[in-house]
C-alpha cells in the first residue's frame, strides 16, 4: 500500500480539539487534492469527536479553509479541472474544490467510524488513560492493516502501543500548534515500529509540507523535554525572586527576561498560558511518571486548583492564566494573594522593570526575525550577556545556560540524536531565532 492507498480512508480522533482541528485541516486538503488527481478512487476522512456542535463547527471551518488553499494553487486546480467543461472561471473551480472537500468528510461521535480506516490520527487530550482507552477500543474495531499516528507530545509510544494491543502499528507524529502553519513534526519511532510505517510517515510529512525531526521514544520527547524543564526553571526563578520583589513583580521580571533578554517570541509564562496550564500539568504528570518526581510544580497545581488554566476560549482568544492578554501581549498578572490580576499599565510595573537595568539593545524578536543583520545583532547581544550589566543580564545569562544544559541533557540521555536535532525543534517548533545548544555565552 503506498501513501495514496493509505490516504483513501483516514480518521482523526479528537478532530474538534485544538490540534485535531489543524490536523483535520491538513488531511482534508490533502485528500481533496488526491481525490482530484485520482477521480476513479474514493477518499474518506472520518472526523471523530464527542460533541456534535463542535463537529459541525469543524466542518464549517474546514470548508472555509478550502478556498484559500485552492486559490494558492490555482494553476494546479485549473490543470486538474481541465476536463470539466462546466468549470471555466477560477471562481467556479475554487467553489467546486470546496464542495469536493466537503464530500470527503464523514463526521461522527463514534470510534466505529474508523473501523475501515487505513490510517488513524489520534489527537485526544494529553492524558494516558484517555488515549489508552481510545486505542484499546480501536484495536478491537480496526483490521490488522490499520496504522496509527499519535499526536501525543509526551507519552512514550512503545508502552502505549503494547498496552493497547497495537504493537508495531503506532508512531508518534507530533505536530506543533497550529498544525497547518508550523513546519515541524516530531517523529517518534518506537523500538518495534514497522519499517513500512516509518517510511509512510516520512512520505506523509513531506506531502503535508512538514519537516520531521526524529526523537527517541522517551517521555516528553525533544519539544516538551525542553519546554517543561525550561518552564520549571522560570517558575523556580520566580519563586526565588518572589520573597525579594513580591510575587507579581517577580513574575513580571522573569517574563520580561525570558522574552526580551532571551529574544524569544513569548516569555515563559505566556507560553505556558498559551499551551494551557492544564495541558502543561498533564505533560508534567506523564513525564514525572516515567522520568522522576522532580518534574512537578506546586505553583502550577495551586493555580489549577483555583480554576486558573490559560489556554484559549472557543473563539481562539486567550483565557487568563498566569497573565491576561491584550492584542497578544501581557496586560495583567495573577496575584495569588487577592485572586485578581494586577494591571501592567501601572507604576509598580515600571518600577519592577527598572530593577532589571538597561534593556537589551537588540531588536525585539518580531523585528529581529526579519532583520537582515539578525545574526550580528544577536552576537552583540550575547557579548553583552557575557559581561552582565544588571539584574536582567544576569537572569538572562542564568536562563540561557539552563536552557543550554537542558538541551545538552536531552542529547546525553539519548532523547535527541544530536545538538542539531534539539536546535531544530526549538527554532522550527518554538520559533526561537537560535538553538539553545550554542557556545554564545562561553
Amino acid at each position, binding site marked *: 500500500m503506498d501513501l495514496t492507498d493509505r490516504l483513501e480512508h483516514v480518521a482523526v480522533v479528537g478532530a474538534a480539539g485544538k490540534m485535531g482541528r489543524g490536523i483535520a485541516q491538513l488531511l482534508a486538503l490533502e485528500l481533496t487534492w488526491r481525490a482530484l488527481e485520482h477521480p476513479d478512487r474514493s477518499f474518506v476522512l472520518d472526523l471523530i469527536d464527542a460533541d456534535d456542535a463542535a463537529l459541525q463547527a469543524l466542518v464549517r471551518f474546514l470548508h472555509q479553509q478550502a478556498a484559500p488553499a485552492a486559490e494558492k494553487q*490555482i494553476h494546479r486546480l*485549473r490543470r486538474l479541472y481541465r476536463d470539466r467543461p462546466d468549470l*471555466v*472561471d*477560477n471562481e467556479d473551480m*475554487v467553489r467546486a474544490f470546496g464542495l469536493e472537500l466537503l464530500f470527503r468528510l464523514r463526521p461522527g461521535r463514534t470510534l466505529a467510524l474508523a473501523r475501515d480506516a487505513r490510517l488513524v490520527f489520534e489527537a485526544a487530550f494529553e492524558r494516558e488513560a484517555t488515549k489508552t482507552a481510545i486505542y484499546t477500543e480501536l484495536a478491537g474495531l480496526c483490521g490488522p492493516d490499520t496504522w496509527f499516528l499519535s499526536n501525543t507530545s509526551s507519552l512514550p509510544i512503545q508502552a502505549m502501543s503494547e498496552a493497547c494491543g497495537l504493537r508495531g502499528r503506532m508512531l508518534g507524529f507530533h505536530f506543533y500548534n497550529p498544525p497547518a502553519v508550523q513546519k515541524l513534526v516530531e517523529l517518534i519511532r518506537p523500538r518495534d515500529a514497522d519499517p513500512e510505517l516509518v517510511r509512510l510517515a516520512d512520505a506523509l510529512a513531506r506531502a503535508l509540507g512538514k519537516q520531521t525531526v526524529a526523537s527517541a521514544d522517551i517521555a516528553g520527547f525533544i519539544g516538551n523535554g525542553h519546554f517543561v524543564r525550561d518552564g520549571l526553571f522560570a517558575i523556580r526563578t520566580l519563586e526565588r525572586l518572589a520573597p525579594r520583589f513580591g510575587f507579581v513583580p517577580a513574575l513580571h521580571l522573569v517574563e520580561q527576561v525570558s522574552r526580551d533578554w532571551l529574544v524569544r517570541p513569548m516569555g515563559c509564562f505566556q507560553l505556558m498560558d498559551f499551551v494551557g496550564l492544564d495541558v502543561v500539568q498533564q505533560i508534567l504528570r506523564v513525564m514525572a511518571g516515567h522520568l522522576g518526581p522532580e518534574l512537578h510544580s506546586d505553583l502550577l497545581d495551586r493555580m489549577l486548583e483555583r480554576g486558573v488554566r490559560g489556554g484559549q476560549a472557543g473563539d481562539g482568544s486567550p483565557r487568563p492564566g498566569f497573565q491576561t492578554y491584550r492584542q497578544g501581549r501581557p496586560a495583567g498578572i495573577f496575584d495569588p494573594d487577592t485572586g485578581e490580576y494586577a494591571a501592567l499599565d501601572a507604576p509598580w510595573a515600571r518600577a519592577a522593570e527598572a530593577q532589571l537595568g538597561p534593556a537589551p539593545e537588540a531588536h525585539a524578536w518580531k523585528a529581529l526575525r526579519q532583520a537582515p543583520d539578525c545574526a550580528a545583532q544577536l552576537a552583540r547581544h550575547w557579548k553583552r550577556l557575557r559581561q552582565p550589566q544588571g539584574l536582567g543580564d544576569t537572569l538572562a545569562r542564568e536562563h540561557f545556560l539552563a536552557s543550554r544544559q537542558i538541551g545538552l541533557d536531552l542529547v546525553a540521555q539519548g532523547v535527541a540524536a544530536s545538538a542539531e536535532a534539539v536546535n531544530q525543534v526549538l527554532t522550527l517548533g518554538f520559533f526561537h531565532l537560535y538553538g539553545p545548544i550554542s557556545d554564545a555565552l562561553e
Partner: protein
Amino acid sequence: MPMPRPVFLAAGATTVSLGPGRREFRPDAPRPGLVHYMREAGRATLAQIADPERVDEGVVGNFMAARFNRQGHLGALLAQIHPALEYRAALRVEGACASGGLALATGIRSVLSGLAEVVLVVGVEVQNTVKALYGADYLAGAGWYEGERKEGPAFFFPGRFSRRAGAYAARVGPAAREAMARWYQIAVENARLNPEAQEYHNTVPDLLALGRTPPGGVAEYLNLADCSKVSDGAAAILVASAAGLDGLGLARREAVEVVGLAHCAADLTTPPPDLTELGTCRRAASQAMAMAGLAMDTVGLFEVHDCFTISGLLCLEALGLAAPGAGAERVLAGDTVRTGPRPVNPGGGLVGYGHPTGATGVRMAVDLWRQLTGRAGGVQVEVAKEHGLMLNMGGDDKTAVALVLKR
C-alpha cells in the same frame, strides 16, 4: 472626412485611483462604491460650470460593474450625481477597457447629431471588491469567453499580454525587457508627481531594478511591475458644441477641441494575426489622424493604453512613433519621458496612475485636457505643439478608440 461640426471637451475631473499601493487602501476595510466615485468625479465636473441644467445627456463608461459590484443599469445611476440630471437621457456603454473611450465617442456622436449641446461623460470602475484572482475572471470577459477562457491561464489577461511580451522579446531581443523595465520606472516617476496616482506613495529606491525582476510570477513573460494594478476610480468630463460651451459660460481657451475621432472593433473570436502588433489600435490612431488631417509631428503629447508595460511599447509602434520593433529602442532613448521630445502619459498612465478599467479612457481625455489647457498642476509638461492624442484599448486589441484634441 473631418468632424462635421466643432465639438469640445471641458471641465474634466478625476478621483484618486484607489487600490494596492495607496497608503489609505485597506483591503479588509469597507470602501466607497460606484455611487461614491460617480458622484465625486461627476460633481467635480459640474462644479466647474454655472448651470448643470445645461447638461442635456449623460453617458457612463463602465466595463464590469455587473460582476465586480453586482450592479447593472448604470445609466440610471447618473441622476444621483445632481438633481439637474433627473429624467435626462442617460446610458451606459461597454467595450472592455475601452469603455471610457466609447463613452466619449458616444457623447461626441450625440453632440454631432445635434440632439444634444452638452453631454456629461463619466467613466467608472470599482474593482477591489474581490481578490485579484476573481477579478481576473471578470476581466477575462474582455476576451472570448466561450472560445478562450477555459484553456486560458488563471490570470487571463496577464497571460494574453505575456504572450505578446514573449513574441516581442523574440523579435527585439534583450532590449524588450530593458524597455519594459524603463517604462515602469518612467510611469512611477511620473506618478510620484500626481497625488491622485495609485503609485503616488511608491518609495522603491531602485525602480529600474524592480522592473528588471525576472518574469514568471504573474505570467511567463511578465513580472508584477509590468502590470497595472487593480484600481477603483472615476473620471468625468463634458462634451459640448460651440453653442453648448457658450451656454456653460466656458471660454474656448478653457476647452480643447476634438478634431479627430476613431473607434474600431475587431473580431473577438479570432486570435491576433501578429502578436507583436496592435493592429486595431494602429487603425484607430491613423483614422483619427486622417480625420484631423494632421501628421503625427503636430502632436505634442500622448496618452496611451499601458495596461502592461508591453502594451505601452506596442502602442508607440501602433501610433507610428516608432517603427515596428523599434518601440523599445525609442523608450530607452528617452523619447517618452516628461521632458523628452514626445512626452507620453505624464500623469503616470495605467501603470502609474492606475487602471480603473471603465474610467481609463475618460481619465486619458481629462489628463490631455488639463495638459493642453495648462491646468495639470504638478504633472504639467511643456506641450510644444497644438495637439494631443489618446489611444484607449479594449481587450487584447479588439476595440480601440483614438481621439485627437486641439488646444
